[in-house]
């Protein structure tokens, strides 16, 4: 199957797997089309901002979770500390905290994507004449 030139949408009903043509050189027109998009400053800005944001949030969740596991492994006494003179321990609050932070981070990503990345993306598509 020949590679479907951008920007025509690929028909998902098509029986042939779409990457089948990947070993054939992409036809000249579509190749230059993609080069044009990659070189577009709007595309570069979108990719740069989103990739950076994604990796920062990834780092945050890794630090939060493995920090929690690290505390459990190395400082059990700290986690056993009572909070506010009650029965609940610091560890319990931190554990629930990890769950809430995970949820909050996905929320932050979605909010940022809705307010910023979608705008950049729409902007890019406009400038490409779509």
């Amino acid at each position, binding site marked *: *199957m020949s590679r479907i030139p*951008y*920007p025509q*949408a*690929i*028909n*998902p*009903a098509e*029986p*042939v*797997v*779409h*990457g*089948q043509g*990947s070993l054939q*050189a*992409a036809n000249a027109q*579509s*190749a230059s089309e*993609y*080069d044009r*998009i*990659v070189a577009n400053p709007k*595309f570069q800005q*979108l990719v740069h901002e*989103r990739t950076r944001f*994604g990796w920062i949030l*990834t780092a945050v*969740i890794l630090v*939060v*979770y*493995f920090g929690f*596991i*690290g505390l*459990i*492994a190395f400082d*059990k006494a700290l*986690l*056993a500390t009572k909070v506010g003179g*009650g*029965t*609940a*321990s610091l*560890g*319990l609050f931190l*554990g*629930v905290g*990890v*769950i809430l932070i*995970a*949820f909050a981070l*996905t*929320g932050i*990503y*979605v909010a940022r*994507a809705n307010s910023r990345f*979608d705008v950049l*993306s729409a902007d890019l*598509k406009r400038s490409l004449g*779509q």
Partner: protein
Amino acid sequence: MIRSSSLAVLGTVLAFLAATSAFAAGPDLGAVQQSATNWPAIGMFLFFVLFTLGITYKAAMGTKSAADFYAAGGGISAGTNSLAIAGDYMSAASFLGISGLVYTSGFDGLIYSTGFLVGWPIVLFLIAERLRNLGKFTFADVASFRLDQTSIRIISATGTLVVVAFYLIAQMVGAGKLIQLLFGLPYLYAVIIVGVLMIVYVAFGGMKATTWVQVIKACLLLGGATFMAAAVLYKYGFNPEALFASAVATHPKGDAIMAPGGLVSNPIEAISLGVGLMFGTAGLPHILMRFFTVSDAQAARKSVFYATGLIGYFYILTFIIGFGGIALLMSDPSYFKLGPAGAFDKLKDMIGGTNMVAVNLANAVGGPYFLGFISAVAFATILAVVAGLTLAGASAVSHDLYASVIARGRTNEASEVRLSKIAAVVIGIVAIYLGYVFENQNVAFMVGLAFSVAASCNFPVLAMSILWRGTTTWGALIGGLVGLIAAVVMVVLSKAVWVSTFGNPTAIFPYDNPALFSMPLAFLTIYAVSKMDRSRRAQRERALFDEQFVRSETGIGAAGAHAH
């Protein structure tokens, strides 16, 4: 499945072995006594089955194209998809296993809940939107976007089938034992019922039926768990502090249940488990398939956000249910096997084992009909999860192996879908057979192994092919293979298999969870082999990255929502 004897021994390895079994749907219940036939539970389960079969019939009527069969026509909304994702993830293991773990060890149960949840942000930040933009039906579509179809689909399909096989065995054996306990049905009947129903859902209704079965089950499970947690909190005036105080006063370990116990005393084991849970989530084929059922990248990312909320909420509920079990069941002898003079061990002697905490608590807070409801929900949960797994396995066989490798694209949609249905039937029969064969085997390590393989084969191949320009076919193929073999070999040489199953005196591989070692090994191999690959094909593949990059980042040219 969580053997209280091994939890009593606070040696890390044993505790981890027990804890690993928290993944699996009750496979290690040991010699289960068949209980009296539970008619309210059977009645409610029959209602669930009839209702879902009705949905399957309707879905089968609307399933015409391959896109309908594999991806529900791409027409699932973000909200529905998030419920289906949560349904795939909230197995009977998390519900019964984690509440049982909280019951025996308190705080330590929370370690598992957090581990299971933190994979979702990673899925969102790194792969969900790109997956939707690049993919069609299976994650192999994405990984092979610019790489060689034959090689990449073989490694992806192998990774998929290995994950599905281990996961399915654990679920089937767990299902058989659980149903024996809950419904009073013989083990073999239970396994056959599960197998036949999952074949019907998948072969007739495809992704549409599987999705809706999952959604209904997720709603039932969330509703039932919410009611139980609320009923527990109600008894303590909605004051968690009062619940904790009562639990600490009742539990034999006393105040120690509020602090970390023996579960994590070896940091390397703990981190390896965490790596497996976190990145395994991002490589589970039946979960990844769900991103192709929504219309676009926006819907994909919203579904992860909602699903993370639902799953996190569910884990908090299981924690409350576990504590409710301590506070409300431990002092009531009617939930225990009584020894001479009415004595019983609060941790070891619960009727049906500690996995039955949630079920017994249902009886305590809602009476026999609510007990029947929760039993039916537990059965429905297993059924929905195995249906999702079967669909993922059948898609790998038909869409990846048959259409792209064997027929090399020279096939048509109708015969591909027909083959997928046949594959679903075969997988179902094999699953029934394996469930029967493994009845008295220790299968507790198998879900852990499934996560490890997903993290060490599927995830590296997928992530590297999407994110790194330099990835070549040779790199992905050899790296994926190395990760797969490393994960399986390390588990075979670990205590769970080498000592417990084969009866050798000591384990050769010292940890129960291989992901910390096998996953980086896979990434490194992909990197190194790709770097060394100087073939002309490799150069073409690197050159094609821009095209893939544009589509993965913007969705330009992505497969649309409708197949018409």
